């Protein structure tokens, strides 16, 4: 192992071998969670799609064929309280308990890193499996089972509203991207004002930022639309007003992000640019801001993810149906049916927008940083 002076192209695996006991404990932990979570999900989906006639239990809980998706609801509820599900959950809990007991008791005595990690991972997975299994065992027998399933897991009820929801998603994306783009432009200009030597530029910029950071976004939306657009008779739709307010509001937050980014660039960079005869604005544009922007991408994207969700506040403006954002579309669906399944779908919609975006940003960030050794240090 590691002869002196011999070059080996990759470092050796120092985690060491495994052994039957830790490997089994690890497998038990995985199996525990797989049964309680994975198998339950499979059973629920199968139940929801079974289209079996309503059972007497469902009838006693007030489910009739008149309810849209009644058979789906009934299938899901029956799946949750079925003996198959109980057996699966029990098996999961037992396996989990074994993994917890063995894992926590023996991990400290393991003699390789791999063995110890497997013991610990098995025990932790076991805890998760036991908690989830115990909860589902209780929930399948509780009186609230049917109420919950009926309210949140009736997906056939949504079948007529997919179009509205997709339009809503599109509008949410437009409002968020539009607001962010406008906000970045406003924020960059404001940031330059806040670091100006001229108090006459600094003061109004600070006042603007303080105002937009210090009042609720929902107030800004209401005031801009009801107070200004409608009150003053401006020819601005609620949608356009909202887009402007999102830009103005994001601008205030982006300004602080850009300011911090610009101020984080070493003083020597500005001196080097000025020393070459560049004007202050040229120095900012060619030397400082390109570096600052790279540094602030993570916090800026954080603001963007927040904005995606904050666009839901247009709910208060009373948009026309074509202008509904995802939240309004979901909310209207709920108001028409009183089935909260609309909220579940809405949440999935928001995740479908923000999660890929977060991944995209991580990718952009990596690309921007490659080849720029030292910029991020």
């Amino acid at each position, binding site marked *: 192992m590691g002869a002196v002076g011999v070059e080996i192209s990759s470092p050796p695996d120092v985690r060491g071998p495994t052994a039957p006991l830790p490997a089994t404990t690890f497998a038990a932990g995985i199996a525990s969670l797989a049964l309680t979570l994975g198998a339950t999900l499979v059973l629920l989906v199968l139940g929801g799609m079974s289209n079996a006639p309503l059972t007497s239990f469902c009838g006693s809980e007030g489910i009739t064929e008149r309810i849209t998706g009644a058979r789906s609801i009934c299938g899901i509820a029956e799946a949750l309280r079925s003996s198959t599900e109980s057996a699966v959950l029990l098996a999961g809990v037992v396996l989990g308990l074994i993994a917890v007991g063995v894992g926590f008791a023996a991990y400290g005595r393991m003699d390789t890193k791999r063995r110890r990690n497997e013991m610990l991972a098995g025990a932790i997975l076991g805890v998760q499996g036991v908690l989830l299994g115990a909860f589902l065992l209780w929930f399948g027998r509780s009186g609230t089972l049917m109420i919950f399933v009926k309210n949140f897991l009736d997906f056939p009820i949504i079948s007529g509203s997919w179009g509205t929801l997709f339009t809503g998603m599109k509008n949410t994306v437009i409002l968020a991207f539009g607001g962010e783009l406008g906000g970045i432009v406003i924020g960059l200009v404001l940031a330059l004002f806040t670091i100006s030597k001229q108090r006459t530029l600094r003061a109004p910029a600070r006042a603007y930022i303080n105002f937009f950071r210090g009042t609720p976004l929902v107030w800004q939306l209401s005031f801009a639309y009801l107070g200004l657009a409608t009150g003053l008779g401006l020819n601005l739709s609620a949608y356009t007003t909202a887009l402007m307010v999102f830009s103005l509001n994001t601008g205030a937050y982006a300004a602080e992000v850009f300011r911090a980014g610009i101020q984080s660039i070493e003083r020597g960079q500005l001196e080097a640019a000025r*020393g070459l005869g560049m004007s202050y604005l040229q120095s900012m544009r060619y030397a400082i801001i390109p570096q600052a922007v790279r540094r602030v991408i993570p916090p800026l994207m954080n603001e963007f993810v927040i904005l995606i969700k904050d666009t839901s506040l247009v709910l208060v403006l009373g948009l026309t149906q074509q202008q509904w954002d995802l939240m309004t579309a979901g909310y209207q669906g709920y108001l028409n049916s009183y089935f909260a399944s609309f909220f579940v779908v809405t949440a999935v919609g928001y995740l479908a927008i923000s999660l890929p975006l977060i991944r995209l940003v991580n990718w952009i960030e990596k690309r921007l940083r490659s080849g*720029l050794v030292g910029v991020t240090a």
Partner: protein
Amino acid sequence: MSATMPDTPRGGVTTPAGGNGREPLIRLEGIHKWFGNLHVLKGIDTQLLPGEVLVLIGPSGSGKSTLLRCTNLLEEPTLGHVWFEGRDLTDIRTNLNEVRTRIGIVFQAFNLFPHKTALQNITLALEKVLRVDAKEARDRAMEQLSRVGLAEKADSYPGQLSGGQQQRVAIARALAMKPKLMLFDEVTSALDPELVGEVLAVMRQLAEEGMTMMVVTHEMGFAREVGNRMLFMADGIVMEEGDPREMFRNPQHERTKKFLSQIL
């Protein structure tokens, strides 16, 4: 301004070797600088003739770097005047951006733009400040990179270069502007010892080609061999001034003796 400060020692009216009564390229007159209440420069007068290499030495905090940075107004002197090519740079009507294209400065921390390649570091100001077209900017940049021996590193980013290479790019960047005067602010102090030589060699060659240079340094060998004139600064004033070889051999002032005995 200097006339109102009669109690401060002054340096630079001596005629340097080979002076022949030519017009000075740059003249500092009664320079005072306060940082807050800290009085860091207490009345400095000096000047450089074309082709002269002036070396500033002194203990840390003596004000030598501040004086250098006052020369191109990166620091604004609180009092005093800087005359360059017959213009007063401290006059607020002077277009400093234009003047600074003719005064190159190189820093201790290199200060290359990390998001630009070595070549782009040089062409940026050529294109944006001097409005040189892209092709000529590239030619001029490559010429300077060759001069400092880094033509093959043109497309490297600063982060991929050693400290000595970065500093040579920084010198090339300043030289590409075709300056009349070069300011060097402790340009080897941040370098690993084995990289100091390559940077000093470039500066030595520059001096031999007749560049007017103002050099703040701790490299006493360089000061002795390349400097035409040397200022020893301490506590914001010029304690002693003269020919470097003469000053090293026979320092007059107690502070100079002490400093040189510590550093040599």
